[in-house]
């Protein structure tokens, strides 16, 4: 028994080719399995099919079926289905219905008709299991990404399904939170016998937890399964998997540092009433690449949000000697932003408009936009809305649009978020090459220390609201 995909084919609409193509695969409940593969290869789709959420919510199964413990999840009603298979999603922001952790867990227990007198005990057990008893009455909105994922896990523990499926559960959280959640999942598997199938691009959080790695390519599972503990890092790299100890091998020119373009002097920033950045000072030079790393909630997004005007700040943030707060509208674009979610930066009605909006002042905008779109293989989609592109395509468009813009400093908030090895390298190579060639400062944030070490000239660590050069942060 386990999860069985039997000759399964699935497509999102009649006129598209199948994303899952005659797939046959069995997942053993006795092992924790991680499914990986290139972005857009159909991993998440496969997970949604196993969870019974597709085809009910989207797409068509053209052949075959999925069985979990001998049952077709799509034919069960939601309360029955969630007792068979629970799911944790990539985005911790959009998986809660209630206001507090307590109410959310009770909501889950009510859904599966647990008697009122048993609820308190189950609630306590799930909170203790995930080590979040102190968060019981906290508002979900006030939790960090890692805490939200722990709350989501507590919901799964409370429901106690036979299987748990995880769709990139660590994409939004720092390594420490990721490892503690992975450890809790390992415990859930060992103590409760819960089957676990996770989709992830990065394997380092699963070391010591997962038993097998399966790779998906072109809608199918590659026959060989990899033992996570004994896998050769180079072999993993060849398969496009981001594994610990594997270098990214960037192909970018050497740095030629020139004058300072961006400076912070005693920069303090708040989110709501809480001060997140406690007076940071730093300077960034043209032609250099800087990585900012730090745990979830350390203030990376707050720093970038303050620079883009989303969050208020005090102190000074100077771009070419001018305070960012006082830049004229025509000067605001001198600092470019690539956001974690590419949809946050779209301003055009069509794919081509998106590029053209960056080239407004260029007399050769039309021909240049064609050149750029052909280079990122999106020319054929030029007249459709950027929101209709796949996530990988949106990421390419977002990056290309900002690269096309004539800025002095490019700030990227997790530009490789939820990307596979090949896409990660392609995005970083393009960004870094552009930064070198145009002699602009590139500042990017990441949770991946290896990525920072391989691409950045300087690594800065945000810790407890302070910014340290990497060698200082460990002091």
């Amino acid at each position, binding site marked *: 028994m386990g999860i069985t995909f039997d000759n399964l084919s699935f497509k999102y609409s009649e006129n598209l080719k199948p994303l899952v193509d005659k797939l046959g695969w069995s997942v053993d409940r006795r092992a924790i399995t991680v499914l990986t593969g290139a972005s857009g290869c159909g991993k998440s789709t496969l997970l*949604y099919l196993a*969870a019974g*959420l597709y085809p009910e*919510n989207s797409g068509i199964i053209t052949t075959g079926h999925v069985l979990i413990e001998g049952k077709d999840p799509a034919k069960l*009603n*939601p*309360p029955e*289905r*969630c*007792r068979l298979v*629970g*799911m944790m*999603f990539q*985005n911790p922001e*959009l*998986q*809660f*219905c*209630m*206001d507090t952790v307590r*109410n959310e867990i*009770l*909501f*889950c*227990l*009510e*859904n*599966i*008709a*647990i*008697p*009122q007198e048993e*609820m308190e005990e189950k609630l306590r057990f799930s909170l203790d299991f995930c080590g979040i008893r102190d968060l019981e009455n906290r508002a*979900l*909105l006030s939790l960090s990404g890692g805490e939200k994922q722990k709350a989501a896990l507590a*919901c799964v523990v409370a*429901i106690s399904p036979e299987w748990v499926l995880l769709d990139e559960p660590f994409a939004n959280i720092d390594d420490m939170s990721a490892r503690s959640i992975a450890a809790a999942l390992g415990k859930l598997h060992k103590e409760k016998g819960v089957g676990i199938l996770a989709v992830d691009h990065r394997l380092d959080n699963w070391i010591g937890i997962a038993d097998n790695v399966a790779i998906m390519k072109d809608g199918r599972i590659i026959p060989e399964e990899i033992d996570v503990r004994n896998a050769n890092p180079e072999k993993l790299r060849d398969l496009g998997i981001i594994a610990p100890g594997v270098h990214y091998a960037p192909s970018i020119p050497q740095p030629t540092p020139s004058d300072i373009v961006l400076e912070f002097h005693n920069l303090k920033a708040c989110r709501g009433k809480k001060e997140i950045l406690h007076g940071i000072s730093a300077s960034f030079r043209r032609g250099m690449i800087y990585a900012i790393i730090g745990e979830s909630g350390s203030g990376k997004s707050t720093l970038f949000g303050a620079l*883009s*005007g*989303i969050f208020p700040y005090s102190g000074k943030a100077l771009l070419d000697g001018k305070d960012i707060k006082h830049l004229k*509208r*025509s000067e*605001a*674009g001198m*600092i*470019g*932003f690539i*956001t974690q979610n590419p*949809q*946050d*930066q*779209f*301003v055009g*009605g069509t794919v081509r408009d998106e590029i053209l*909006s*960056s080239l*407004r002042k260029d007399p050769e905008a039309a021909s240049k936009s064609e050149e750029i779109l052909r280079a990122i293989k999106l020319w054929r989609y030029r007249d459709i*809305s950027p*929101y209709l592109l796949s996530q990988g395509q949106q990421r390419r468009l977002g990056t290309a649009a900002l690269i096309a*813009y004539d800025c002095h400093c490019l700030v990227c908030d997790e530009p490789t978020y939820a990307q596979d090895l090949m896409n990660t390298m392609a995005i970083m190579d393009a960004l870094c090459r552009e930064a070198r060639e145009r002699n602009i400062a590139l500042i990017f944030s990441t949770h991946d220390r290896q990525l920072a070490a391989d691409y950045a000239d300087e690594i800065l660590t945000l810790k407890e609201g302070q910014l340290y050069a990497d060698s200082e942060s460990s002091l």
Partner: protein
Amino acid sequence: MRTLNPACKFISLLAVTLLLAGLKDPWWNLSAFLVSLLLLLLSGIRMRTLLLYLLPVVLAAAGMFFTGYRFTAESAMPVRSDTFIFQGNSQLMNGILQLSRVLAYAGLGYLFALTTDRVFMVRSFQKQLHLPQVFAYGLLAAWGIFPHMALEYKRTKAAFRARGIRVYPVSPALLAPLLVKSVRWSEELSIAMESKGFSSNARRTDSSPVRVHARDILFTVFCCIMLPVTALLTH
């Protein structure tokens, strides 16, 4: 007020609102406003918070006073000044009537909004007023999205500014991405709720059943029967 059954509270306060709408008596309106303030303070709402909430109300009330004062109905109008109870100085009284209405409705509205927990309210509406559960929990989930919307609005605005494009607060270019995102969010949220076993028609249990107590019945009877009868007798 915080422990009153929200459905009973809602019906009671709605009845008082309708009663005041029919009375056209500024003293009843002002009394309702003052009682609402007193109950809010007794329910633990801080004076500072209350004053902040009342600021726009006072401005609106002042505006309504001057509108009522300036545009009193003349005898040729369908609604004449002599239909008002106070005829000593109809211009002034018309202004006071408009002002007191704003204060009374705002006071009653705040009394409900500031003393009612939203989860408790939805549970109560579902149980006592038979609100469909898909609507009740959809409402709660949507509530959770509002803070994200405010942040997304700022992000989208920042994206335009970063490319030197000027946008106005309600410009379609700015609202289009927000609409796309809200549709996407609602889809993700409904999938997440379904994966946690939520169904519009399956049987659910209740972790803290919302019951109607004697005090809820007393409050409802007072607001829905005793007050209208008193109003009828005194007018």
